[in-house]
């Protein structure tokens, strides 16, 4: 297992290098620059700006300098928000997005798992159809529709919740629900499918024959095998939670990394774009690895195949 993890970690280096390279040159090739203002900046100021941001060096030189900085954890100065460096901005914004993502995942698991297990315990009855229809609704109602609708109903019409923000616990409810809903829906469907497959197996019949109560059969023996598809889905899901937060942070005006990234992209803030992309890519890679390790740890078949 250690070897598997180390091997995967080793692949991170070329992947991240490729991402940095692609982003760097994509941003540079694109027409327009960070200092294209409505009114023309004097030639001299422009030259000084370019000098300050190392934009006057040859492109390959800039690229190498940037790589050197990245290795030392220095993502450069922000072009548009010079009060802090990119690293500082990211350290400030990332915890908010991570917190939001964690709550989203929590919502997804806390709603999705029970819903799937309940549905699978009585397939093709009302007890199955009701949660599965809700799950379909969760998949078909995008989060940028669900979020505003929740705000409209619970904040504006009923006045139970704050409209936006990210300071008090009450302000965190609607964004977390909105972010987690789609994943709750997918997890419910996967759980149901996994449980139905497992509950037909011989070892479940053995458990029943031993005289275990149905609850014990489902929760002790069924869930273990039935949740494997969900575990495999967690990798892609966490990646989705991260990008999903772009929209959520916009709707609820949360000062997270997602909003920072979209803003940076609009402003052509080169260093900020590259920094946030790098952080997101690293997160996605690490979270995928964690999900895979978890999967291998729980499923002996997967463990065998990676050894």
């Amino acid at each position, binding site marked *: 297992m250690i070897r598997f993890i180390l091997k995967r970690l080793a*692949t991170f280096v070329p*992947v991240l290098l490729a*991402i940095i390279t*692609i*982003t760097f040159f*994509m*941003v540079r090739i*694109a*027409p*327009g620059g960070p200092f294209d203002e409505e009114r023309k900046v004097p030639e001299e100021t422009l030259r000084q700006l370019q000098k300050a941001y190392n934009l006057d060096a040859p492109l390959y030189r800039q690229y190498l300098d940037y790589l050197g900085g990245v290795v030392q954890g220095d993502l450069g100065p922000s072009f548009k928000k010079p009060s802090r460096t990119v690293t500082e901005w990211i350290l400030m914004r990332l915890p908010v997005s991570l917190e939001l993502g964690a709550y989203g995942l929590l919502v997804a698991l806390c709603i999705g798992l029970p819903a799937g297990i309940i549905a699978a315990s009585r397939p093709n009855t009302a007890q199955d159809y009701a949660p599965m229809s809700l799950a*379909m*609704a969760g*998949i*078909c*109602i*995008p989060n*940028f*529709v669900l979020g*505003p*609708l929740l*705000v*409209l109903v619970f904040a*504006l019409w009923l006045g139970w919740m704050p409209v936006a923000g990210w300071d008090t616990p009450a302000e965190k409810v609607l964004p977390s629900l909105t972010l987690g809903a789609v994943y709750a829906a997918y997890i419910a469907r996967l759980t149901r*499918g996994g449980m*139905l*497959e497992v509950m037909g197996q011989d070892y479940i019949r053995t458990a029943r024959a031993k005289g275990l109560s149905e609850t014990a059969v489902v929760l002790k023996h069924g869930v273990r095998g039935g949740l494997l598809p969900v575990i495999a889905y967690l990798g*892609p899901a966490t*990646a989705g939670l*991260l*990008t999903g937060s*772009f*929209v959520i942070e*916009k*709707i609820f005006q949360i000062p997270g990394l997602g909003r920072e*990234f*979209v803003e940076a*992209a*609009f402003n*052509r803030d080169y260093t900020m*774009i590259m920094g946030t*992309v790098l952080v*997101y*890519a690293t997160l*996605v*890679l690490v979270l*995928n690895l964690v999900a895979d390790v978890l999967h291998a740890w729980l499923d002996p078949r997967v463990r065998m195949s990676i050894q």
Partner: protein
Amino acid sequence: MSQPDLLENAESGTSLWQDAWHRLQKNKLAIISVVVLTFVVFATVAGPWIIAATAGYTYRDQDTALGASSPSLQHWFGTDTLGRDLLTRTLYGGRISLLVGLVATAVSMILGVTYGAIAGFAGGRTDQVMMRIVDVLYALPFTIFVIILMVLFGRNIYLLFLAIGAVEWLTMARIVRSQVISLREKEFIEATRVMGFRSSRIIFQHIIPNTLGPVIIYVTLTVPQVMLLEAFLSFLGLGVQPPMSSWGVLIEDGVRTMEEYPWMLIFPSLALSATLFALNFLGDGLRDALDPKAAKE
């Protein structure tokens, strides 16, 4: 039995597609979805013309004196802040949303099917390298690259097709590859080799047509995903640009004014969600119909 009767009986054996059609017909949700989708396509294509001909306004005709008005007999979905008829705008936006959904899915299908078929057919080292690339791409935060692309290279609709198509082809490549690997060993493919066909001819004429079932299922399920991605981008202000409009654009408009004019959020949201519902149900129904084994699970 006379000769024609015999022929008739000989023809009455059911093919895979007839079987699938029968199974699909029994699936009420899928049939309702087909009806809904037909209606949506008809309404979005013909609707704006009909309204223009009967009521006399188009999606961009403003009536600033009227401003935002709630749904009425004159304007069934109400009007937006510029006094533009929301029904017309929703239908017109749907046209763009559906167009993006179809074209970008087609792009992803062409990419995915070709890539998967080549990898599966070549096998060995080539296959390993090609699929390893797909694995790596899977791990990338693609949405982020699409956002950067759209911001940097101008927000035109052709780039949107390409960018979205480039994101969604990976799963298609995997599905097709595994199909092709199982087909590759079949006798009829061996026969084409014996006959000395070129690899490209074998792939495109004999292998790909036989992967059609799973491809159709996955395409039906990709269209809603693509439409979602388009709406997501448009919502962030990166997709379709005014005066063109799509459901994502309209929803974004609606969110900004939802406190005063909730109908501007509700109707486009309903249109998008209903279409996504229908596409998903139809995709599930097709899967059950074309692949009865998977349906039992």
